């Protein structure tokens, strides 16, 4: 327990009626100003944890403090300190967008004038000013998410909880929400987010906890977690006309490459000898040297790409299964960069 932590969860257990253990003794803490992610599949216990942290649900055992307040003994203070955008939006469909926000502000103790001003600001922020007079029930999915998100911001909470804030959104809306969240975090808001979208955790979170079946299986920065999985993979296509090169060249390149200290392994995945899969430490940083080295030794390379391990690989390593069967995030495609030296350095 360090002094800078604003959310602390210790040995948290939640057992639902019927002896269903949703959360089975998890520990984590989040520092003030941090962007923290709980990453896991459906039913992992993410939402249950969030609901306990936000006073909506009682825990079975353990200790949870938010902004220094115990979630069971000091509910009011906890609620004042947090904004919570739940997995399912909770909107007042028959109210106009602006009225919905203003009521929200009033309930958090804003004066009517302050609440109206804040509602105007936030509507502007998420591009809903035009729709402010429309009933919330007429909003599209993306608009509903956005107004739900800003309804949690009316009272300027120092801590923001987000339970799968972009699930079910199209890529454009998703990126818009990410932009807002990054902005908020830059301005000092502590954010705890749950997600099953790897790209989301990777892009937004400074630290993630991977949770599966009510247990945290790994915790750390996305970078360190991915580093644990192993190095990056550089895919090389040799020569000007690929397959004509033959096995001797492959063997020569392989022995050349293994002499470099950053190369962890070399294999020829396609079996035709033209392509080599080279596992390296810090792919982005070593590629320039790799290219120079091969050039100096008279080896022509017609194509090169670098792939990093994803959080999916991290999840797979720790749990033995994939986070989602349909987990084809744009991430995996995005990081295979087809360029000679302009390799995309990932964050």
């Amino acid at each position, binding site marked *: 327990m360090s002094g800078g932590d604003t959310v602390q969860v210790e040995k948290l257990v939640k057992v639902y009626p019927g002896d269903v253990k949703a959360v089975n003794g998890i520990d984590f803490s989040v520092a003030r100003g941090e962007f923290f992610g709980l990453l896991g599949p459906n039913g992992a216990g993410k939402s249950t944890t969030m609901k306990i942290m936000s*006073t909506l649900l009682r825990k079975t055992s353990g200790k949870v403090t938010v902004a220094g307040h115990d979630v069971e003994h000091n509910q009011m203070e906890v609620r004042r300190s947090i904004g919570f955008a739940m997995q399912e939006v909770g909107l007042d469909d028959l109210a106009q967008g602006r009225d919905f926000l203003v009521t929200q502000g009033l*309930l*958090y103790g804003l004066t009517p004038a302050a609440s109206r001003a804040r509602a105007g600001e936030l509507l502007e922020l998420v591009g809903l000013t035009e729709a402010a007079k429309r009933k919330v029930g007429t909003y599209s999915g993306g608009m509903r998410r956005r107004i739900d998100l800003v309804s949690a911001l009316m009272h300027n909470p120092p801590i923001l909880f987000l339970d799968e804030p972009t699930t079910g959104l199209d890529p454009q809306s998703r990126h818009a929400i990410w932009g807002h969240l990054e902005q908020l975090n830059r301005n000092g808001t502590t954010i705890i987010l749950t997600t099953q979208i790897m790209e989301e955790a990777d892009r937004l979170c400074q630290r993630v906890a991977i949770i599966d079946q009510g247990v945290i299986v790994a915790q750390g920065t996305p970078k360190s977690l991915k580093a644990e999985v192993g190095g990056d993979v550089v895919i090389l296509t040799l020569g000007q006309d690929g397959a004509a090169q033959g096995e001797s060249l492959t063997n020569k390149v392989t022995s050349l490459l293994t002499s470099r200290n950053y190369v962890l392994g070399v294999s020829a995945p396609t079996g035709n000898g033209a392509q080599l899969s080279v596992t390296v430490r810090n792919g982005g940083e070593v590629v320039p040297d790799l290219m120079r080295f091969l050039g100096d030794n008279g080896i022509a390379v017609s194509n090169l790409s670098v792939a990093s391990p994803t959080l999916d690989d991290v999840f797979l390593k720790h749990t033995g299964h994939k986070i989602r069967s349909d987990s084809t995030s744009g991430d995996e495609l995005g990081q295979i960069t087809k360029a000679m030296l302009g390799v995309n350095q990932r964050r």
Partner: protein
Amino acid sequence: MSILTQTWYIYARNFKTWMAQPALVIPSIIFPAFFFLLFAAPLGGVTNLPDFPTDDYEAYMTATILVMSVVFSGADAAMAILADILSGYFDKLLLAPINRFSILLSSLLMAGTRALFQVIVIIVIALILGVSFKGGVPGILFIAVLATILGMAWSCVGLMIAIKTKSAQITQTSWLLFMPVAFLTTAYMPKDFLGGWFKWAVTINPVDYVLDSIRVVVITGWAWGDIMLGLWVLIGMTALALGVATWMYRRETA
């Protein structure tokens, strides 16, 4: 921010929600109008029976329609809070740093508002039909208060069903529960005219005592001896409903 301020904010929101649904407001006008049309007019002949307490059957039926309308308005209260539970807005209210009883209180106030609106509509129709309220203007105010409180008491029952079941299907059929208490009464005829199990059911139905008090004020006037029993029953019934609803609400939201 006091609980009263919080209650007021949520009440204002509930009121706007109600006004935004004319489909809910209009039937509460049409329903009593139909009642007068379908029952009061064709059944008027029963006043010719010996010992019928009035010769104005529409006056007799005014009390009936008032009581039935407000009892059934309990289902409206249930549907209103259920809509919020299902939409997730209820959770949003629970997340706010407010006294959670302000949510229950504002729902009950809204139920009272709906009941009062019904009561006013019915009294206006009755006046148009020429019903003479023997209790005078104070009598009209008195029965309006009684009927509104009765509506709030039965709204507690509706709220309990909604909060406990969180099911649209079950809540939608909650009016089945309100049926016997609304109909097993002296709605159409005085008790002396009834017989058998029906008379027995009417005797144990607390709503009938309130109905009786209201009717006395309409057709007889300020006969306190006949009014007091129903008043006590209403107070007891309301206290019980409020108590149980509060207890259940605390269990479900704590």
